[in-house]
């Protein structure tokens, strides 16, 4: 996990790329790719499209949901890029249900907290950890279960990736990121777990424009940046309430 084969020189200079295609250079068939977002919330929409344009296949996708409503990562399912999905929740994602039932895509369902902790461990140089989540369920099958301080725990392994594709609201040219609301979710953790992290920036700023105390993800976890000001940001479930009638109305 020391990434000994990665270059030392220049890895943290010239991160800003002038196109999505340039940002995705080197993302090839057979790789493990993490993609940020909780369902369709916080997706790196242009990078997701860009991977389809690269024509790669046999990817292992690590993401909480693998898209929904035919949007987001469901477009990868439809384009046939994916061999295996590691996720926590399929829900109403018919594109994934149908391919899983047909046996064309392998699906590994992991508890959500375990999924993100496996990423965190990979990014923090921890090869495995013990968690109470999954004890006594199918999740513990084939894994070490150990009693510590009178309670049972399952050993889970770190989950690294070749690439992480994430999105942030504000990004400076070194890659320091600020996220927006619940669009943050898995993205900063995926950034730590991947050998190469690509950020789709809603807003690209000069170095110094983000106060150091306001940085959510330090730029050392970011290797490439592409500015994409426009996003679709589809709703999955648009819920609302009626505004109360004005007093006396």
């Amino acid at each position, binding site marked *: 996990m020391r990434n000994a084969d990665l270059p030392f020189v220049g890895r943290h200079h010239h991160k800003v790329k002038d196109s999505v295609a340039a940002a995705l250079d080197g993302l090839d068939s057979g790789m493990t790719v993490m993609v940020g977002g*909780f*369902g*369709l*919330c*916080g997706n790196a929409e242009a990078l997701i499209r860009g991977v389809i344009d690269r024509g790669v296949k046999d990817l292992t996708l690590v993401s*909480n949901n693998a898209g*929904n409503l035919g949007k987001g990562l469901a477009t990868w399912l439809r384009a046939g890029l994916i061999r295996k999905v590691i*996720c*926590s*929740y*399929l*829900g109403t994602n018919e594109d994934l*249900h149908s391919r*899983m039932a047909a046996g064309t895509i392998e699906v590994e*369902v*992991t*508890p*959500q*907290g*375990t999924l*993100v*902790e496996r*990423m*965190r461990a990979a990014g923090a140089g921890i090869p495995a950890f013990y*968690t*109470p*989540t*999954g*004890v*006594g*369920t*199918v*999740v513990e099958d084939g894994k070490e279960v150990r009693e510590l301080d009178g309670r049972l725990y399952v050993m889970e392994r770190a989950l690294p990736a070749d690439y992480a594709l994430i999105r942030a609201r504000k990004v400076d040219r070194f890659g320091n990121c600020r*996220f*927006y*609301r*619940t*669009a*943050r*979710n*898995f*993205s*900063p*953790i995926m950034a730590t777990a991947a050998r190469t992290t690509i950020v789709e920036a809603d807003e690209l700023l000069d170095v110094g424009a983000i106060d150091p105390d306001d940085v*959510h993800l330090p730029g050392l976890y970011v290797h490439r940046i592409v500015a994409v000001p426009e996003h679709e*940001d*589809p*709703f*999955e*479930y*648009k*819920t*609302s*309430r*009626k*505004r109360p009638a004005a007093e006396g109305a």
Partner: protein
Amino acid sequence: MGYSKEQMARRAAAEIPEGSIVNLGIGLPTLCADYLPEGHAFLHSENGLLGMGPFPYEGEEDPQLINAGKQTVTVLPGGSTFDSAMSFAMIRGGHVDLAILGAMQVSADGDLANWAVPGGKVMGIGGAMDLANGCRRVIALMQHATKDGEHKLVRACSYPLTARRVVDRVITELGVFDPVAGAGPDGGGGFRVIELAPGVDRAEVARLTGAPLVD
């Protein structure tokens, strides 16, 4: 006979301590928020939100501010957003006081099954296993039996388990019950009757429960 869905949600909301941190599961548990006095408790949503508010007013929906059910929500003053690792560290680390979750089956030992139906479509685990194991108190809010009268409060779960011995209390349309390991007459678990819903008779509850009722 028994509680309506709204009355079930109101009864479950009465279990939420003042000044506590609460995670409400998808579906019926979400309704509990409607019966909390303003400022009573702080709602946690595992996708990275503490201090969750009600649904936004029409026209103010933000696709990047959602709950774990991917519905648009709001954030209250004093609320915060964070990444998924921190959110689940809150859960697993015992910092969330109470989870109110939906359930398919609960055993008299407190085992919970709420993520998959045998032979059915696998919807996924999501945050269910972490919440069930990590939250300090777990309440299952559920129908007492299936429409066909098949038991859902059982001696042992036949559905895939979410977690073992985690459910502290079950609230159904028939009343409030606590699973207690070893409390049954045969040495197995039993459901302690805490209260029966208005008009519900104990013999009827016993018929619809797949494990002994105990006092």
